[in-house]
């Protein structure tokens, strides 16, 4: 389970639930701000380039959002775009980044069941609609 860190991407570690230990991880390096690999996350995500890979190799990039035209959008519209995220249960289009290969991809994920329906490259998005 990964919590969207919104626009502060990369500044704070994503919060993760530890499936092995009820109540989360205690990790001194984590507390000291040293990045750790969360070896207890076991999900598999399919990178369109590299195939199925462990979730630790990926970075969650938040929901895919369409930027309104900067000069036409009202302040409210812009604030809506910048700050609001859709958290309600549904199939969402999300950005994921395969870190070792530097590949951004789009995943269609049911955020209620955590089921990934498909993944594809951003460029291929138009073809898939």
């Amino acid at each position, binding site marked *: 389970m990964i919590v969207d860190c919104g*626009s*502060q*991407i*990369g*500044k*704070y570690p994503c919060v993760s639930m530890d*499936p*092995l*230990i*009820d109540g989360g991880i205690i*990790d001194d*390096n984590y507390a*000291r*701000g*040293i*990045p*750790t*690999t969360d*070896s207890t996350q*076991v*999900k*598999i995500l399919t990178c369109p380039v590299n195939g199925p890979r462990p979730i630790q190799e990926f*970075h969650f*990039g938040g929901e895919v959002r369409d*930027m309104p035209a*900067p000069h036409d*959008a009202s*302040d409210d519209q*812009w*604030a809506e*775009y*910048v*700050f609001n995220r859709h958290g309600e249960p549904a199939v969402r289009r999300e*950005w994921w*980044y395969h*870190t070792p290969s*530097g590949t*951004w991809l789009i995943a269609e994920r049911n955020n209620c069941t*955590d*089921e990934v329906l498909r993944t594809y490259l*951003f*460029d291929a998005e138009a073809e898939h609609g």
Partner: protein
Amino acid sequence: MDRRLEPRAGEWIDRDRRVEFRFEGTAYTGFAGDVLSSALWAHDVRVQGRSFKYHRPRSIYSLAGHDANVIVESGEHTNLRGDLLQVRDELDVRAVNTIGGVQRDRLNVTEKFSRLLPVGFYYKAFYTPRRLFPFFENQMRKVAGLGKINVHGRCPASPKDYAFCDLAVVGAGPAGLAGAIAAAEQGLDVLVVDDQRHPGGSLAWQTGSVPGGRQLLRELLDRAGALDNIRLQGGTQAGGWYTDHWIGLVDDCRLTKLRARTTLVASGVCEQPAVFQHNDLPGVMLGSAAQRLIQLYSVRPFDSAVVLAANRDAYRVTLDLLDAGVAVAAVVDLRPEGETSELSVQVAATGVAIYNGHTIYSALPAANRNRVDGALICPLAADGSPVTGSATEIDCDGIAVSVGWAPNVPLFYQAGGRMRYDESRHQFVPSEMPSGLFVAGRANGIYELPDQIADGRRAGLTASAYLGCFTGEVPEVPTHRGPPPSHPYPIFAHPEKKNFVDLDEDLHLADFVHAHQEGYDNIELMKRYSTLGMGPSQGKISNMNGVRILARLNDTTIDATGSTTSRPFYQPVPMGHLAGRRFHPLRRTPMHAWHVQADAEMMYAGTWLRPEYYRADGHARNECILNEARNVRNNVGVIDVGTLGKLEISGPDAVEFLERIYTGRFAKQTVGQLRYGLACDETGVIIDDGIVARLADDRFYVTATSSGAAAFFREMQRWALIFQMDVTLVNSTGHLAAMNIAGPNSREVLQSLTDVDLAGAAFPYLGVRPAVVAGVAALLIRVGFVGELGYELHVPAAQGLHVWTALCDAGQHAGIRPFGVEAQRLLRLEKGHLIVGQDTDALTTPSEADMSWAIGKKKPFFVGGRALAIQNRKPLTRRLVGLAFSADPAGPLPKECQLIINNQDIVGRITSIAPQSTLGYPLAMSFLRPDLAEPGNDVQVKVDGGRLVTAKVVKMPFYDPENARQNA
């Protein structure tokens, strides 16, 4: 007394290997293959454990690891289960939690006070007075608890293993084996695990009364053995199911992390006890346990037995007991109509008395209360309640209970499966299947042997079809035929309240009634209040009855009552199996070994290790740092900045891309020149900064902060996609080494190693030059982060150490010394340069950081620009300012993040502080309310202890405001 039977086909013991072991200090013999409980029972050792609360004598109950009656410890290991622990020579164990041994445990005195120990006793009795709780707890710890940890013991190594398969089959019984074979025949790579040491499941211990059963098992094993793509692992618990079929396999010595593509749960059922008075006495056991004793360990369970029956299996138990030479005094069948199959005829033909519509009202304890002496049976009224007036006693030394089953499907639940209560079976059956997980056999509510095998085959083919390896027709799930295998309510009240529902926690029927009266009418609340199923056996043989009791108390259905949540692991697992190394990525620069040799104190900066400062004999840390900084100001210093993000951006759209990513303008930047780059996110918050060097019209080289580089590069890549721009982004951070030589003597030192003219006119401040330094191709960048004349050298990583040592050698006469991160932080603070993430936070905009100058005017777009346009119309709420403290502070100085107070309001916070500086007074950077931020103002900072310290707002930079030194 030796209860061992003659050798029989299929037994799990090896009669050729006799072993000697000790239990409670006494030596016993057994056979290899025996578990502790079977070996002891063979010697007629009936009291093998003591219960948790009342210290009642306990013994074999399931003989399958479904109960926790017999827990023993050796010096080295604790929490060993009697029915899972293999005996071996030198095994020396004793029962946990006794005083004076398991035979006469003096703690049994607690039972005398059982009326004073109602359900929820702990919650009620000890919460007040509070100060006495430590005393109560200490006393309770002495009598409660399960075993002692030997803190001086050896910690056995627990290796971790990894495994992969297409189909993981949990349970090597008829359904599991049939499923494995069906799937393997379709080409799947199959791994079968079973927590028992030998395969066969129910075929192994029920064969005695299943015609052709042993032959069938041999056939299944032969067929499985002939398939190379089936692996079979006994003695292995599939303990937990995690996302995408990641399964934790636990055996005696290791945890195996199995990644399967599909899972077949064929882990069968747990036999469920009946609840009657003294149903926990040694000698009362599940029918399946008696069968396991006979069939697997060749031990005669009793001399004379009463069988409590409510299904067909009880009659198989009866026949097995008779076959093992046990006199069966009676079969007591809860069902008014009794058993209607051929089996009842077979049993009746042996002359065994069958009491239909009767129950055992109480097991009768022997005088020493350590064993069964008889059974008190009585007829059942139409409503199922015992008619105690017509009770009769039957002599026996054992009671076998076979009244029902419950699916043993922890992995199914953990994967998100749901069950429904099926009235035709009186038990739960799967209703909602998780994706890629299948259930077969008894776990699926399929009880008769040919059906179990057909169902296993069906599941194996379903898994194959799921993986696209089978396109044929998958058979239907066989339908359940015949009477229910489980009794709907095998629970009988007794006024003396020793009719146990949960043996782990000594919970009897009345505890549930009382908990319900107190309002705990939900299964999850009931569980937590009564501790039902919270013992070591995790409710495997208690939850089902608990649900039945609560449903009746609530006068509702089993479905409406529901069940508690199943969590990993299925059985208790030694902590060592779960403990292990965590892997932390760690990066070292090419000059790392040099730093270590130079006695650097290394620190983490993101994933990097960097020199914090270099230790010098006789000097404290802060002195070392200050001396390093002074040397930069007065002579020349060199710092390893290889941790900086080093990114190359090229292509036709490179300029336009940079203009969008950074706040500044780059279109008119000339080749050979560098500019400051400030990057914001879409909310206008500063996320990174660095230099942007133009190497060619369409080629730029930029640096990013050490800890932010990976994220910043990632965002650059995403924006390039979103903008659909023709740019090439290369992250050269690891390919290149970088160092910064700074100080008044830096030009002289560097000039001695390169032909490039470093004179100020030829190579001014903010210039970029390709060069050869010490024979190595380098990019020279003239920067001023620390406020002195200085050059950054970017060279291939492989040559980094060479160039570094060349600089150090060349600079020896000029007083060159390396400096660490702390000295650099001090120097840049003196120069008023902020560090992103240190002097900015998750909300800091360029205006707040006094960086509006870095924002290009009239830019059509940059990331964060639209948000900043909105922000800039609002009044500024804080500004980053410099603070100067008295050169001779009387008390403690503030620390980072301490607050600036004005009229009891928080008006700011320190972001960086240097208690000592090369300027001779302490200085700091801080956020401050704009109306207080005029240079010359005094502000009060609250320090440790609550004292207020005065500081003066000063215009930054503190050092060299004319930039004469960096521009030299």
